[in-house]
């Protein structure tokens, strides 16, 4: 067996194992970490298929950003996951049935009876090109228009998320950063020039102050 094939099977086994870990682990943080592992392995599998850009972007975006935020949420929320998990065994037969159906469908589809694209070898001129560059070229020439529309969709998603969750509280205390930045040393600290020795007050002072002085001494 070729080394690449062995590697593929090892990675796939890890991928399947960690995906099972996601749905079976009791602790949500463990589940999230299993998900991170499965993203990593999926990236590695893609790397084997020479899709290095997609592989690295998967890690950069999903592991590096999405899962971090997800982990954040999972850690902050006090969700009783045991209660959410209660129906696990009663739903299992249905879920398993759907899973088996999906496997069957995929095997029919990939069986090659309907789609022949799988057997197409990579055109030789593409074998050595950088797929980052190729993807970029396609995305910004052929598919500029859907790319822009997709950008608009993401913008709408941001707007929607903010208007649905942000409630401007009236009672928050906040810093006025502009003022803080504009502060100069002279605003906070006044350097006063004064003599080291105070000149003696005139002797014709009121008797009370004399009494005070006496007390001070």
């Amino acid at each position: 067996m070729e080394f690449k094939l062995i590697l593929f099977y090892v990675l796939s086994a890890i991928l399947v194992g960690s995906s099972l870990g996601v749905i079976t682990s009791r602790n949500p943080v463990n589940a999230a970490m299993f998900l991170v592992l499965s993203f990593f392995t999926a990236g590695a599998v893609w790397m084997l298929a020479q899709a290095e850009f997609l592989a690295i972007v998967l890690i950069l975006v999903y592991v590096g950003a999405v899962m971090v935020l997800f982990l954040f949420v999972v850690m902050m929320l006090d969700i009783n996951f045991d209660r959410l998990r209660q129906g696990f065994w009663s739903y299992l037969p249905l879920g398993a049935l759907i899973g088996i159906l999906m496997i069957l469908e995929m095997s029919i589809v990939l069986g090659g009876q309907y789609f022949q694209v799988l057997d197409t070898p990579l055109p030789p001129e593409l074998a050595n090109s950088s797929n980052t560059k190729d993807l970029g070229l396609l995305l910004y020439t052929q598919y500029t228009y859907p790319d822009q529309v997709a950008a608009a969709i993401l913008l709408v998603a941001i707007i929607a998320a903010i208007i649905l969750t942000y409630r401007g509280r009236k009672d928050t205390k906040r810093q006025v950063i502009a003022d803080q930045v504009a502060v100069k040393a002279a605003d906070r600290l006044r350097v006063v020039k004064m003599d080291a020795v105070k000149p003696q007050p005139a002797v014709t002072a009121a008797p009370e102050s004399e009494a005070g002085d006496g007390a001070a001494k």
Partner: protein
Amino acid sequence: MDAMIQVGQNLFGAAWPLIWSVLKIVAIVAPLLLAVAYLTYFERKVIGYMQIRIGPNRVGPWGLLQPIADGVKLLLKESIVPTVASKGLFILAPVLSIAPALVAWAVIPFADGLVLADIDAGLLFVLALSSVGIYGVILAGWSSNSKYAFLGAMRCAAQMVSYEIAMGFALVCVLMVSQSLNLSDIVNGQGKGLFADFGVGILSWNWLPLFPMFLVYFISGVAETNRAPFDVAEGESEIVAGFHVDYSGFAFALFFLAEYANMILISILTAIMFLGGWLSPVGFLPDGFFWLAVKASALLFCFLWFRATFPRYRYDQIMRLGWKVFIPLTIIWLVVTGVWLISPLNIWN
């Protein structure tokens, strides 16, 4: 070198490529760990002199054996796992913290052609790995089951996520001008240009045309490694030691190693992206690894200098700097670079 490869092939046969790779990895990691050890010594000395002290001077001549002594001490101490900690993750966290810091070295070119893995998407690889380093910190903070540790982890995660965006955009500017994601190509691209032809290569490097990005990248790098003045994640005066407050012994040492390895990594990357990597600043001196070491050391000195000079940033100020200053600045410079590239004034042809 060739003779050695020949001998190895005769000796190990089919397993040789694997062994050769392992040897190369050791050849990178061993000096790196040594560098980390002496960086701690260097740090204490530098900060000591800046504060008109002497620094470590008892163990060995001029205190030179101090890092070795520290290492042995940490190795021999007991690693305590708190009773209520989430054990698996508690042990996994330091590993996840050190691993990306070491793996990223695979694509670092030390000199022309001297690189473990010369991959095309090297820059993306570095970006991806630097974004993964955060897991060690978050998991450490959470699994310790301690408030201080958790607070530190939250601060750290928010900070690293924010500064990664600015770092990413700064690097996008670099890849725009060098038209490549390969780190060796990026360095070689800086060796060309008008000034390089006149023999003053130092003016052809990326730091000059991309000066704001150079600053943003390096400062974000300081924030990314959680070093002073951005060290709110540790914040020893507020939250004791932040995310690793409950770690001791070797597990603690791993966090320490990761932090310093990341510092060296950021310095080397800054040198590669903006300061011409192994290129010599002037035409009459030869290029070589020496220059990369000098540049990285100078940047590392800046890390220590910052720590000795600046007071710690307040948390909201860190967030403001990242989101409201650096990210807009990088986006604007992205547009500037793009316009520059298509304008007749383009200097990168």
